[in-house]
């Protein structure tokens, strides 16, 4: 009876039809954040929205591009880009990452000496394998979840990785 009741806890939050289910909370927080930023004339240095168990935080470091210092105001806070730009900053292509699906040893090729699954500069599609993580002799494929171009591998072959470690950066294809 002392078993962590995670199934029951999740059940009750996700499936009982009350408005404060997790997806609804996330949606509410995200909407609030976007609304707030679009309505704010002087851009903030930091915004944080918390709805129950969900917290979304964004901040813009001092000295960000196009900082317009108010006359007589102290150096910080600098102006932040508008909300939409925050999701896709102006300079350079946005980078996404492919993350380790579990703790284990990361390999770029299916076996020693074989050709890597992908190389830097290759384009990938959702579900395409870009590597493998070995945990206890199980080979867990590492797959891209989007269209894009492999930018750079961030972990060498044979690296010990933990769950969620970024394995390679990836330039997403437009509009995907």
């Amino acid at each position, binding site marked *: 009876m002392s078993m962590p009741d995670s199934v029951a806890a999740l059940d009750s939050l996700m499936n009982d039809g009350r408005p404060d289910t997790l997806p609804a909370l996330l949606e509410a927080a995200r909407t609030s954040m976007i609304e707030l930023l679009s309505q704010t004339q002087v851009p903030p240095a930091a915004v944080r929205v918390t709805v129950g168990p969900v917290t979304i935080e964004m901040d813009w470091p001092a000295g960000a591009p196009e900082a317009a210092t108010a006359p007589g105001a102290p150096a910080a806070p600098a102006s932040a880009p508008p909300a939409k730009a925050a999701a896709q900053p102006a300079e350079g292509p946005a980078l996404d990452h492919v993350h380790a699906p579990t703790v284990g040893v990361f390999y770029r090729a299916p076996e020693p000496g074989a050709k890597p699954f992908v190389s830097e500069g290759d384009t990938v599609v959702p579900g395409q394998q870009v590597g493998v993580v070995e945990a206890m002799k199980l080979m867990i494929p590492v797959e891209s979840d989007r269209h894009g171009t492999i930018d750079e591998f961030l972990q060498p072959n044979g690296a010990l990785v933990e*769950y969620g470690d970024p394995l390679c950066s990836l330039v997403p294809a437009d509009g995907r």
Partner: protein
Amino acid sequence: MFRTVLIANRGEIALRVARACRELGIRVAVVYSTEDTDSEVVRYADEAVRIGPGAAQASYLSIPAVVEAARRTGADAIHPGYGFLSENADFAEVCAAEGITFIGPPPDVMEALGDKSTCRALMADAGLPLLPGTLEPVSSPREAEARAAEIGFPVVVKAVAGGGGRGIGVAYSAAEFPTVFRETRRHAAAVFGDGRVYLERYLESARHVEIQVLADRFGNVVHLGERDCSVQRRHQKLIEEAPAPGLDEDVVAAMAEHAVQGAKAARYVGAGTFEFLYDGSGRFYFMEVNCRIQVEHPVTELVTGVDLVHEQLWIAAGHPLRIGQQDVVPRGCAVECRINAEDAGREFVPTPGLIDELTMPSGPFVRVDTHVRQGSRISVFYDPLLAKVTVWAPDRQRALARMGRALDEVRVEGKGLRTTTDFLHSVIDSGEFSTARHDTGLVGRLLEPAAAAEGAGVTAPSQVQEPPKAS
């Protein structure tokens, strides 16, 4: 002794095990999910490995991820805590294959005791008293109805793979039996991946009393007395205490003797618990064995002075027991309250959220086991246990007064957060509990006194049982 122990758990028990390791000079490694990145035990450990996302299935329940973490940290043993992989025989087997000591009973023992049918058969052979019921699982509804009629109502339908209060349905009459039987089977199949169930006579007015045992690899077994865990809601314990109040010494001694016999028959190794139901009139019945440290182990520690996690590590390291039965001399009374992030007013629904303010009790004869602090987030992914508050006193009356004082000091504030603190206080203060006239139906009666008064006479007020739940 071990050099490095990997703790394959989270929350208060992970921290409690980590403290024991530190006291023994053992290096502490822990696994954690992305939800627990800022957890107290991750800060506390010498090494921490992020093994998966919040969902336990891909982190704390993932055997490859945990074993990988053990290899990476050079752990020579794994402490599984309670819940998660702690009673998973496959996991214990994998550990053995990898040359890592699993801190718990051998895989085959865990397997035999984890299957309620083989366990009941084993204990019946060892002479333990069982409730009238089926030793084998029943699958045909028709056969089940016939057996239920033989046993007599109320009848409880239990998942073979269940335990810890989960996978249980109660039928009060032949009319409702088919529905309860069907629903419990469906639930068991969905949750445990094993739809087998068995039947047992249901005791309406019972006390839940369990015996703590320690056993080594050499066949030595001692018991550390009993715990009474009759304050439950939906078969989940809320308050535990030692000794069991109002029980005859002879009854407890017989129960303990049976537990030792059962442990020997099962070739048990490590810390384990034999759960019994006591019917209030001198008879008791074996229920199940828990092959792990229990949430409520502190009450036994406070009355016996034995550190059960130290002894688990000692036994797992291959030593013979270092305490004999004569060394176990219980003293006074200990009571534990579980402070859960739950709303007692809304059927104990978990209330996850951020803890903005936290005060835990302190001072004379109060022990607190917690993993939260100001700023901690109670995750929806896990058990809502926030803290265990345990007190000791020379006798039960003073222990309850002390618990009242300690609960008054508890303060947990946060948006949307509710805790069981006030409800626990009302249990402590209730006449039925404070005079030890309670049984496992107490919580239901306290929550719905009107319904209880209606549904039952004064002398047998325990008929109001909660209906079987899908979770």
